């Protein structure tokens, strides 16, 4: 009984502390993810207060956090949106992969982590954080802007790319030989194709299985099916995250929308736990040695994302200021980079320093992204004043709106 009391007090303190961190984060207009990571780092190896008695719960909670993060990523876009997104933005999507996966892959190779490490790092630097980006665009009142559909279609493409990338990564991490790896890749591609076909043709059946007019029943069925699918996927050597993700893609239509609404608070709760646990398992002392590299990577991949957004917006006939906004909007990396790093480190197939590098990198990018989105306009206008381009006149009107207060969405 006594230990239960201690565990409850600890858990309560952790969640309350995270709540405060989240509040601070949105107040200053950044995502709470870096603060959660820092919180985890602070409590980790020889941190201030060693947490005891809740490790098991924290571990399971963080697993559920990953499952929910990816389930909701899969739910985010309907199969039809994925298909039209693929048709409309594949050129920008391919450019996005080339420009943003390359820096990570190169760093992975330079550090001697081999092709597997390169593949993992490529994912870490490639995938933008749709959660942070959607939130920042909303806060800045840019959802009605003409360049916003361009940004969103790039995110849709990244979502699809993740659907292909994650199974491949997990197959490679599972230590399959090159030949076995090829067949694993083939199997995972086949799985993706089947899931997409099911989603497009029979999504309503999958949706009908989990759907229920009663909120309580719906929630239980949803969570139950997500954990079941994730567990089975995990058993089949595809990771739990991938299973949840594919289930999310298969659920479609209004069911998907209701499911998203229903699961968002749960996701925020468990995902926060996931970031903390990731921080807990990362030794703070391992960060300084990779910090220089993380900064270099941050600078390069900021530039490459801006270039991606700029080019994609230009193709849609957006003016220069809008192109700059689209580019800056895409900069933020966050939850999915950490998910990739956590999968990689958990497999033990890659040097443990990858976790430190990914942590440092996401800390930088999750802060830099929202900041870049905010300051891009004043910067671009300054550029205009200094004669870098002559598209926009100077406005005294300061466009940096204060972010609205809302619940932290990790």
């Amino acid at each position, binding site marked *: 009984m006594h230990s239960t009391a201690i565990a409850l007090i600890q858990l309560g303190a952790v969640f309350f502390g995270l709540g405060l961190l989240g509040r601070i984060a949105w107040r200053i207009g950044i995502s709470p993810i870096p603060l959660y990571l820092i919180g985890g780092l602070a409590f980790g190896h020889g941190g201030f207060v060693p947490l005891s008695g809740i490790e098991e719960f924290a571990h399971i909670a963080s697993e559920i956090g990953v499952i929910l993060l990816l389930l909701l990523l899969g739910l985010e876009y309907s199969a039809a949106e994925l298909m039209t997104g693929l048709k409309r933005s594949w050129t920008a999507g391919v450019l996005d992969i080339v420009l943003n996966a390359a820096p990570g892959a190169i760093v992975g190779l330079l550090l001697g982590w081999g092709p597997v490490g390169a593949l993992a790092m490529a994912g870490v630097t490639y995938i933008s954080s749709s959660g942070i980006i*959607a939130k920042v665009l909303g806060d800045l009142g840019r959802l009605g802007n003409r360049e*916003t*559909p361009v940004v*969103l279609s790039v995110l849709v493409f990244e979502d699809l790319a993740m659907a292909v990338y994650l199974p491949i990564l997990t197959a490679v991490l599972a230590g399959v030989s090159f030949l076995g790896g090829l067949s694993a890749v083939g199997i995972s591609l086949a799985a993706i194709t089947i899931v997409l076909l099911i989603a497009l043709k029979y999504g309503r059946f999958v949706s009908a299985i989990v759907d229920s007019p009663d909120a309580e029943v719906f929630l239980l069925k949803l969570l139950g099916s997500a954990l079941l699918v994730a567990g089975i996927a995990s058993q089949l050597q595809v990771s739990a995250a991938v299973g949840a993700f594919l289930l999310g893609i298969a659920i479609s239509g209004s069911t998907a929308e209701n499911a998203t*609404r229903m699961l968002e608070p749960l996701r925020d709760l468990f995902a926060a736990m996931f970031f903390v646990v990731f921080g807990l398992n990362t030794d703070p002392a391992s960060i300084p040695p990779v910090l220089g590299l993380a900064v270099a990577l941050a600078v390069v991949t900021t530039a490459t994302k801006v270039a991606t957004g700029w080019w994609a917006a230009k193709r849609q006939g957006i003016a220069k200021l809008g192109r700059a906004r689209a580019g800056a909007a895409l900069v933020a990396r966050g939850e999915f980079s950490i998910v990739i790093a956590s999968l990689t480190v958990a497999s033990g197939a890659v040097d443990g320093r990858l976790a430190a590098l990914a942590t440092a990198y996401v800390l930088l990018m999750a802060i830099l992204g929202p900041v870049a989105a905010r300051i891009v306009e004043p910067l671009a206008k300054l550029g205009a004043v200094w004669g870098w381009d002559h598209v926009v006149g100077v406005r005294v009107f300061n466009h940096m709106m204060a972010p609205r207060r809302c619940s932290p969405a990790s």
Partner: protein
Amino acid sequence: MNVEVTPLPGIGTRQDFMIRSGRRIGVITYRDGKFELIVSSKEDPDDCSASIPLSTTEAGTLAGLLGAPQLVAQLRDEHSDIAGISTKQFPIVPGSVFDGRTLGETELRTRTGASIVAVVRAGAVSPSPRPDFVFVGGDLVVVVGTVDGLQQTADILGGG
């Protein structure tokens, strides 16, 4: 009007159109049914100078406010083939004589021959209001009558 519909994957849809001054005006409909009114900025047509979140009720009210002139125009059209008759709208100024009094008390028909065909309040239209209809400041009263009648109506409703 050419209304452009743009899907916003993961968020909802944007519907907007160009107005004469070169701005885009439109509405973002979120998946969860929220609305946002958007107005593009003058200097940068790609950008929005305002995006205002509206609840369903607020959106409906705004639509009504904007729709009132159209209602009057419609009534005017309907009466346009009758010579000498026109339609006008008069506001009940808050705190004026008829703010809080009934339609019957204006004795409008007796005094001017014009008749009140509708009252628009907060965007909602009350067609053919009865004599016991109570005016509230801010109401728009839609009146049909002769030019003379409407002139007198303006005097009565404006100053009583």
